[in-house]
């Protein structure tokens, strides 16, 4: 087995996670259908998509929880299937649910997790003390995890995932259910880990989180990468340059919607407003065709991405509704 620090020569420079052609069916249903991922040191890749898109399944294959039906996964050059011990030694995982060991204290959890890795860390005790300070957990070190607030439970989950000094970190919806203050605190920790050179893969439903933390995002839909690039480029690609907001109760809205639908544009209804993604030419054509209609225009956000995916009729649940 390779030591934690050794990297085989075949590893492309800087690439710590390399997944090629991942496929997975669960219960006979294809969940992931040919996904490729590559993440370098100091990079955060965000996986976005509606529920059931295949994000968590992709992540679970990458950290060895699920076996891929097809495809290869390399962690710092180590094949996850053929060299599971070497590959798993180099990855850390923060699962969506709290999976700490309820029978141990905060400190005990860090120690116990450290014991699940070989080669052993000769300085594990010192490492635990450093992590307790780094993640702001020192004052809770003798408490059971169940007594912590949601934000500190998440801190413990992330702290536990890096106790063995991994090189690739998987964060599955790390801030779900946290208040804004706790979310920001977790973001700062993630940014710090990125600065230390970890390659990070992050799934999230929070669009602002993906935009703030990710260098690149993959939009996953129906088990495939629907779009990929920087958050801005992905928005441009999937959503368009502008979002036109049109009140559902305004006079003439019906005919405007019919006009859009005739041109293949799929408006989405969010509460009382229709959200219509358009490129510059589409916006110009709309303004020319309906000079008297009241509307607003704003730049697209990643929330619009989900609405656009839902409007395509391929995704899972969505906040938006497409009226017939």
């Amino acid at each position, binding site marked *: 087995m390779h030591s934690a620090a050794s990297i085989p020569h075949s590893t492309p420079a800087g690439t710590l996670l390399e997944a090629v052609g991942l496929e997975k069916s669960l219960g006979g249903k294809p969940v992931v259908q040919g996904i490729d991922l590559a993440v370098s040191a100091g990079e955060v890749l965000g996986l976005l998509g509606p529920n059931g898109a295949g994000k968590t399944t992709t992540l679970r294959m990458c950290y060895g929880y*699920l076996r891929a039906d097809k495809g290869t996964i390399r962690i710092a050059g180590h094949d996850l299937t053929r060299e599971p011990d070497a590959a798993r030694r180099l990855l850390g995982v923060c699962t969506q649910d709290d999976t700490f060991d309820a029978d141990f204290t905060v400190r005990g959890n860090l120690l116990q*997790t450290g014991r699940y890795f070989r080669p052993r860390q000769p300085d594990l005790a010192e490492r635990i003390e450093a992590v307790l300070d780094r993640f702001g957990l020192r004052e809770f070190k003798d408490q059971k995890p169940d007594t912590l607030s949601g934000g500190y439970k998440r801190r413990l989950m992330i702290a536990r995932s890096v106790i063995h000094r991994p090189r690739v970190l998987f964060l599955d919806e790390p801030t779900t259910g946290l208040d804004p203050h706790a979310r920001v605190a977790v973001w700062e920790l993630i940014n710090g880990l990125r600065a230390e050179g970890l390659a990070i893969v992050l799934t999230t439903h929070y669009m602002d989180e993906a935009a703030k933390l990710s260098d690149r995002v993959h939009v996953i839909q129906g088990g495939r990468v629907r779009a990929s690039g920087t958050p801005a480029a992905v928005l441009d690609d999937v959503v368009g340059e502008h979002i036109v907001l049109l009140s559902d109760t305004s006079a003439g809205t019906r005919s405007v919607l019919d006009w859009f639908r005739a041109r293949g544009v799929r408006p989405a209804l969010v509460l009382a407003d229709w959200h219509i993604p358009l490129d510059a030419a589409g916006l110009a054509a709309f303004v020319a065709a309906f000079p008297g209609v009241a509307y607003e225009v704003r730049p697209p956000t990643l929330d619009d991405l989900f609405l656009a995916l839902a409007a395509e009729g391929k995704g899972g649940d969505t906040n938006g509704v497409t009226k017939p």
Partner: protein
Amino acid sequence: MRTFAAAFQWQSRAVLARHVRVHLRNWHTVTLPPVCEPLIMLLTFGLGLGSQIGSLRWQDRDLDYMHYLAPGILAYTAFMSSFFQSLFAAFIRMHFQKSWEGQLTTQVRLEHVVWGEAFWAATLATAYAAVVCVVLGAFGLMGQLSLRWEWLPATIPLLFLTSLAFASLGLFFTAILPSIDHMSLPFFLVIMPIGFASSTYFPLPDVAGLREAALFNPLHHLAEGLRFLLLEGRPTLHLAISAGLCLVLLMVLVPVDMRLLRKRVFGDG
């Protein structure tokens, strides 16, 4: 082969060590049940019921009930403790505490978690059986029990093997029970029949087919084998048959457990 090779890998020991660590932290409370249970059983059944029964026929000789019961309790403790731990406690850790999922995000894989649980159930059950040995010794000191005490240490490896085999049975039910509400089913449908058709607490009644069925029950052979060993100082074929049946159980059930638990834990056939 990979399934069985995992039993000897460090990850399985790491999971076992985790369970030992948690248990030892609470030793002062968790030691009470294994001490009290055989004590109560020997007092109520051995002395209480035994005084009503007097003696019973075993191997064409009269035997007072206390002496019949003592080896049986030893076998039953290993069987019951192991099954309970691998079913109930493992189910809690898998389903509610999610500590399996936490372990599976490390270098520990499912086969290690399963072996760690099985070894822990067997270790705990054997430790409980060792406590029963001490309690039996105390009854011996009080003059209530006369056994071939020199054979007592030799029973430990057999009790461990039996516990490991029944742990694999417990894990089978851990894998297939839909919820904790169904936990009593294996006790009524499997454990009680195995326990009662085993010569642990009373000799097998003359019921059609029961004696034939008991031939395939490792607990029956263990109880009878321990009885010959501890009452007469005679190792018999019963012990070898019990060990053989336990090995068969392990060889068959562990791969099945792995397959079912893979489906249960990962949702992956």
